[in-house]
């Protein structure tokens, strides 16, 4: 890679040992992908919690702290695995909670802003067209690339932290124009009235094109999609397809037309998604033993407007005795939801609101499943339905109002 004098200085140790090691690591990653240079980033969003890092990761983080690691660009954290207020009641491990507290303190010592949210793009930072960032959590990356027209690859925990320490990232993948062009088209010929329908689109498109460098160009939709709809679409495309970008003609900034979004690429495939295809997605989920005792609104965390809708749907109702219903959001949204009464409505209905976490990364989730003898998990999020499999849940995607109905009736259809 071509290095600037500043980068050669970092390698020589002018910014300390932690920054030097971070740049060497980034050079190895850049070399794999054939990056020719580094590009500066303005914002970093990283995943770092004890569930995913484990003792090995925590040990590494301690040594980084000892080396004097310090962020040189604003750096925020993704959703984590423990909400300390609910830790004991959920049967989470006290030892792991202590490690999580140490991990958070360690990150804060490096000047990381522990926002603990996977919806930073809705609540913390909105990069502009062409702005280069280093974000982790695939849902944040696909939103940044697609909806904002910013530029980021999937930057996992150590890669994002490296970018925070050096202020740059290797230029490959979605930093390059050639990878941002559409590779196939998707015509939407369905109403898509619920957030789960958008996740279903993401499942259909993503599952059939599992490739980081596949970029769908979505067109033909007859109204303006909302931010929450694009969030569920993106999260599902990233989850099922490992995709980092989509174009939505007339909606996203690099897609004024199909031709512009394709940027000269010849379309190898044109997909059409009709209402019947969406219904087939719902019918495709096996109901297992019919267990309807776990309903989850999470993955991504709920926006304020999602909280409002859930509060309205749960108003005057009650989660069935013996069932559990979880909503996850971040501290900012929860504070507003409390001020506006949405949180109280949900809690009066028996819903548990978890703050700063996402359901699928909860510490001790497999043990929680066993303790409650949950076999199924019902959600309106296609992403979480896909992602939670390693914990041995049978998962079922349903529309938002149906999820509420299932939580209150205990009946799964």
């Amino acid at each position, binding site marked *: 890679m071509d290095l600037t004098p500043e980068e050669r200085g970092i390698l020589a140790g002018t910014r300390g040992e932690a920054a030097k090691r971070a740049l060497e*690591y980034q050079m*190895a*990653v850049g*070399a*794999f*992908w*054939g990056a020719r240079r580094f590009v500066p980033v303005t914002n970093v969003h990283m*995943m*770092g919690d004890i569930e*995913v*890092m*484990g*003792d*090995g*990761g925590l*040990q*590494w983080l301690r040594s980084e702290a000892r080396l004097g690691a310090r962020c040189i660009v604003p750096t925020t954290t*993704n959703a984590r695995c423990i909400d300390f207020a609910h830790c004991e009641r959920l049967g989470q491990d006290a030892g792991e909670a202590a490690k999580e507290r140490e991990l958070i303190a360690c990150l804060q010592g490096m000047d990381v802003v522990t926002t603990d949210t996977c919806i930073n793009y809705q609540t913390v930072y909105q990069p502009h067209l062409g702005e280069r960032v280093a974000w*982790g*959590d*695939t849902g944040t990356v696909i939103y940044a690339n697609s909806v904002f027209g910013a530029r980021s*690859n*999937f*930057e*996992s*925990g*150590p*890669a*994002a932290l490296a970018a925070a320490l050096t202020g740059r990232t290797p230029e*490959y*993948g979605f930093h390059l124009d050639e990878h941002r062009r559409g590779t196939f088209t998707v015509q939407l010929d369905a109403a898509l009235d619920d957030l789960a329908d958008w996740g279903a689109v993401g499942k259909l498109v993503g599952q059939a094109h*599992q*490739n*980081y460098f596949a970029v769908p160009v979505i067109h033909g939709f007859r109204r303006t999609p909302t931010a929450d709809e694009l969030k569920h679409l993106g999260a599902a495309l*990233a*989850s*099922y397809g*490992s995709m980092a970008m989509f174009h939505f003609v007339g909606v996203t900034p690099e897609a004024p037309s199909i031709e512009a979004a394709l940027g000269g690429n010849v379309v190898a495939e044109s997909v059409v998604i009709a209402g019947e295809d969406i219904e087939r997605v719902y019918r495709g989920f096996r109901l297992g033993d019919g267990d309807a005792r776990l309903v989850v609104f999470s993955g991504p965390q709920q926006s304020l407007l999602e909280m409002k809708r859930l509060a309205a749907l749960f108003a005057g109702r009650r989660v069935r005795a013996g069932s559990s219903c979880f909503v996850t959001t971040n501290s900012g949204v929860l504070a507003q939801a409390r001020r506006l009464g949405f949180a109280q409505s949900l809690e009066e209905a028996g819903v548990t609101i978890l703050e700063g976490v996402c359901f699928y990364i909860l510490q001790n989730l497999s043990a929680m499943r066993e303790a409650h003898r949950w076999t199924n998990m019902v959600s309106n999020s296609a992403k979480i339905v*896909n*992602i939670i*499999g*390693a914990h*041995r849940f*049978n998962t079922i995607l349903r529309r938002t109002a149906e999820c509420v109905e299932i939580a209150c009736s205990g009946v799964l259809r």
Partner: protein
Amino acid sequence: MRRAFGPAVEGEALVSEEGFSPRYDLDRWTGVITRPGHRLEGASIVDKVCFFPSAKGGIAAGWAFYDLKWKKIAPKAFIFGVTNPVMVQGAIFAGIPITEGWDLDPRQALRSGDWVRVEPTNRTIEVLRRA
């Protein structure tokens, strides 16, 4: 292979028909693939040279591979048909060899249990013993 990182290693091949994610598919405390319905459900990736056609999902691999190594349940190498940056960032962070791109589909040339040698520098894989 198109791209490669890491030192040369030898090990038992684990050949998958399906893509992989440590978050979606793997019990990260045992190294066993536990996702219901995964084509390798019940198989262990510990000390294996893992052939996966594609990478699935998520950001988790970045930290997860390092922690697998810490727990001594890491695979010997990842040989992907198509991969994504997270797998690469995670493998390099953990010091696990990783490659992308197949000249020959390993599902035709190999079976799980064959003993193979991965040479990232030459971008080659050699079958040393058949299962």
